[in-house]
């Protein structure tokens, strides 16, 4: 990271200044429309905000550090990044506070969240509702035309969370270990038989592991039945759809790393095994982490990224505010800044984080949209010329069904 700093930072700072000038008019229009926003700015400034977010990736941590410098300059907000190993730790904490009768002095002000964690918190009334749409910058996401920013795994967000970024399931492989990678589920099966022990996926309930299973389930389900995946899972639909998945896995597992007896716990462990060249094929939800890891020496230079031809699972990730947060207004200011053009453009830069923006670039001026383009792609980064249809996330209730079924079948194998 240090190597890239000097030239880019200078350019970036000038650009940030420009963006600020350019966005200033927009900002003031938004404030005129919502007089309460000024109250939020007044009440939220000069206070700390505790942001609970997964802390397993140094690159993302550095970006969050940049965010905290920015909100300090703008609002004198002290943004503390609480690094979680799993987002559910924050969910547990808010629940513990609720059970202890702490209704307005919660320690969690802002959570990076989506999917099942969001569904659980929403169900249990642990999130502050109806605030996301009031953020001035939220309009930049073009919510009327872009349902991805108001639907979290098919569940309406009801203003409980503000979008932050988008991700698609991406595969990467070691080009020294094979001539061509598998491009579909069927090819994956034959490839794994030829390359014994060179592929695995993280154990559910890990996010990437479940995502791989969802990708497989969508791919294996016939078109006529696919609509069932976008409705709450029932016992009936589960018994109808899951057996094909289990048959596929039964065939795949003996070819996996450790013959499918042991599964890693998360996708970063997967990346480490790719770095060790124990694996030759792996998957991730943040494509830009791959070239970044190559530049940090964590992956060999022979790594290449690609998208499966039979589709890529895609979703949005959000930030949410617990119902009992101590600094609700400060958290809103931070969430709004996360949606600003400069924060989103910086986040999409491959050498910063490379997370895809949630803004609708067609709403921006040509100059603003240009900030989101990538100058010289790294050889290991994802080349998006190949068509890979986006696969929408199934209804979140499927996660539990898939997890449960997987753990019952493969989770407790003795020897």
């Amino acid at each position, binding site marked *: 990271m240090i190597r890239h700093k000097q030239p880019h930072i200078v350019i970036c700072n000038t650009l940030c200044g420009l963006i600020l000038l350019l966005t200033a008019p927009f900002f003031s229009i938004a404030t005129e429309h919502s007089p309460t926003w000024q109250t939020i700015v007044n009440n939220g400034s000069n206070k700390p905000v505790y942001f609970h977010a997964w802390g397993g990736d140094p690159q993302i941590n550095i970006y969050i550090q940049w965010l905290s410098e920015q909100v300090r300059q703008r609002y004198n907000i002290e943004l503390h990044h609480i*690094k979680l190993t799993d987002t559910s730790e924050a969910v547990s904490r808010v629940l*513990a506070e609720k059970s202890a009768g702490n209704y307005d002095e919660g320690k969690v002000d802002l959570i990076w969240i989506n999917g099942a964690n969001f569904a659980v918190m929403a169900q249990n009334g642990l999130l502050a509702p109806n605030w996301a749409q009031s953020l001035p910058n939220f309009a930049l996401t073009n919510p009327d035309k872009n349902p991805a920013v108001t639907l979290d795994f098919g569940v309406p967000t009801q203003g409980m969370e503000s979008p932050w970024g988008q991700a698609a399931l991406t595969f990467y492989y070691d080009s020294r270990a094979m001539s061509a990678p598998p491009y579909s589920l069927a090819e994956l099966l034959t490839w794994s038989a030829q390359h014994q022990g060179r592929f695995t996926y993280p154990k559910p309930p890990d996010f990437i592991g479940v995502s791989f299973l969802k990708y497989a389930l969508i791919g294996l389900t016939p078109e006529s039945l696919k609509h069932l995946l976008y409705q709450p899972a029932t016992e009936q639909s589960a018994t109808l759809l899951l057996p094909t998945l289990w048959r596929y896995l039964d065939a795949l597992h003996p070819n996996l790393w450790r013959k499918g007896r042991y599964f890693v716990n998360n996708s970063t462990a997967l990346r480490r095994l790719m*770095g*060790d060249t124990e694996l030759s094929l792996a998957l991730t939800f943040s494509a830009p982490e791959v070239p970044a890891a190559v530049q*940090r020496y964590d992956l*060999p230079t022979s790594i290449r990224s690609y998208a499966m031809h039979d589709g890529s699972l895609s979703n949005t990730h959000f930030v949410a505010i617990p119902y009992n947060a101590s600094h609700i207004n400060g958290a809103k200011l931070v969430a709004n800044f996360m949606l600003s053009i400069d924060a989103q453009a910086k986040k999409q830069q491959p050498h910063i984080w490379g997370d895809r923006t949630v803004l609708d670039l067609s709403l921006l001026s040509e100059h603003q949209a240009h900030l989101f383009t990538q100058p010289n792609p790294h050889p290991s980064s994802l080349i998006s010329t190949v068509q890979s249809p986006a696969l929408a996330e199934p209804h979140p209730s499927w996660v539990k069904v898939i997890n449960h079924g997987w753990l019952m079948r493969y*989770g*407790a194998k003795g020897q």
Partner: protein
Amino acid sequence: MFNPNNVFTKVITLSPALLLALLILPVIGGLVGVLLPAFSYIPALGEIGLSMKGFSALINTAGFSDMVRLSISSAFISTLLAFSINLLLVAAYFTSPWLNRIQRLLGPVLVIPHAAAAIAISFLITPSGMIARLFSPWLSGWQSPADWLLPHDPWGISMILGLTLKELPFLLLMTLAALAQTDLATNLRAQHKMALSLGYSPVTAFFKVVLPNLYPFLRLPVLAVLAYASANVEVPLILGPNAPPTLAVAIMNWFNDVDLTLRIKASAGAIIQLLLTIGLLIVWWCGEKIIKRITQLSLVNGTRNYADKGITWFVHLLTTVIVSCVLLSLVGLILWSFAGYWRFPESLPDQLVLMHWQSAFSHMQTPIMNTLLIGFIATLAAIVLTLFTLEAEQQRGYTLSRFATIVIYLPMLIPSIAFLFGLVWFQEQINSQHALFNVIFSHLLFVVPYVFLSLANSYRRLDPRFMNLAASLGATPTKVFWQIKLPMLATPICIACALGLAVSFSQYLPTLLNGGGRINTLTTEAVALASGASRRVSAVYALVQMLLPALAFALAWFIPKLLIQNQHKGNHA
């Protein structure tokens, strides 16, 4: 009128009670905070009726019996191995300067937090690890890493290896600390020498003469190791299997699961974990009694030699293997922390870069400051409380009751996973909002037992004649305490400080849970990064984690020497 002596005596008189309250209230509170949910009492989830459904859900969990079996077997085997190897080492090198040299070589392992040690060992034994690289491809023929089962093997072998290598130095240090007590050591060494002169071979003499008198000093450390091994989460997370994992890891996963109703099952699991650990401790204690009974006769059967030559050779071999394993994992860690591209099977990286250290250091200041602050305050508090309690004992003229002793060692013997979740709930109840204070307080629970353990014997075994002499010259108890006892105890106090710091530095669960995740220390950062990121950054963190406590132990070794030197100078002047 203000009389410093009176005030001091009062403080001293009160401190045992304070110490006990400090330890017993949070642990009991924490246990209650787990017991209620275990019987399905969580008002926040709308569960208020007491029932056993947590336990029935637990028993119906797929692989539950495997989890329990894995926890029991890995804990028992690793403890037995570490204990036996410790005894063999001490026996074979009892009269040799090598005992201290080995301790010095293994010392660094003692101070590495468990998570870092587990990472280092996994670097060593993975198919792409140092051992495989050293023997590939010239011997093994591997061009790419073999798909073998270590680490994470379903039998827990890697986990046992990790725990054994990590706990051995602790037991060795505790043994040597016992042997550092002048009177005990003099007696034992004299008896050993006597046995040698009667024709016993050295190893046999150790087992027959020294061990029976030494074991009482080792009992508690061994039980602590056993309890820790049965309930820790760091080592099984990094080295153990996950289909299914050990019980403690499963409990932690359930506690953290998004499905909040799993809390009931997790709390039930914590109760089972508690019973499992207690059961293991009882089994060990019974085993000890049985072995004592069985071997009673052979102690005096007059046999001078039990294949001592063979044993000695075996110990030489074992020592070489262990020390080279430790050195190799150290070398591995250092190489990884500087490594550029490093493809298997190269035994050295393609290039060495400073990048990983630079990027780690730019984020490390706050965690290091927090680590030091928490460590120093917790250790200082523990040392003061321990010394005052021990002084109170001597002023009252009788030692702490059996009950009090058990209470002091409670946090060492009760699995932390069984009461920490409850303790967080408890702290919420009394509305203790200050995160740093909560963390320091929870660290204190774990630091006190170790400090007490390492100080108590030296304190109780101080030669009373010095004190009697001072008193007969008119010195008040206060003066005796500050000017006679403390200077005489300089070495053990410094060691206890270093141990306390090391214990505090390595705490993961208490820091994370009691600080509400707001307090980042070196260890929480390291574990967070170990769950993701890269080997290279992990290696940097593991090395820094080693460096801090190593520094503390270096000071503990150096300061008493300095003090003694100054004293001598003072005498000459």
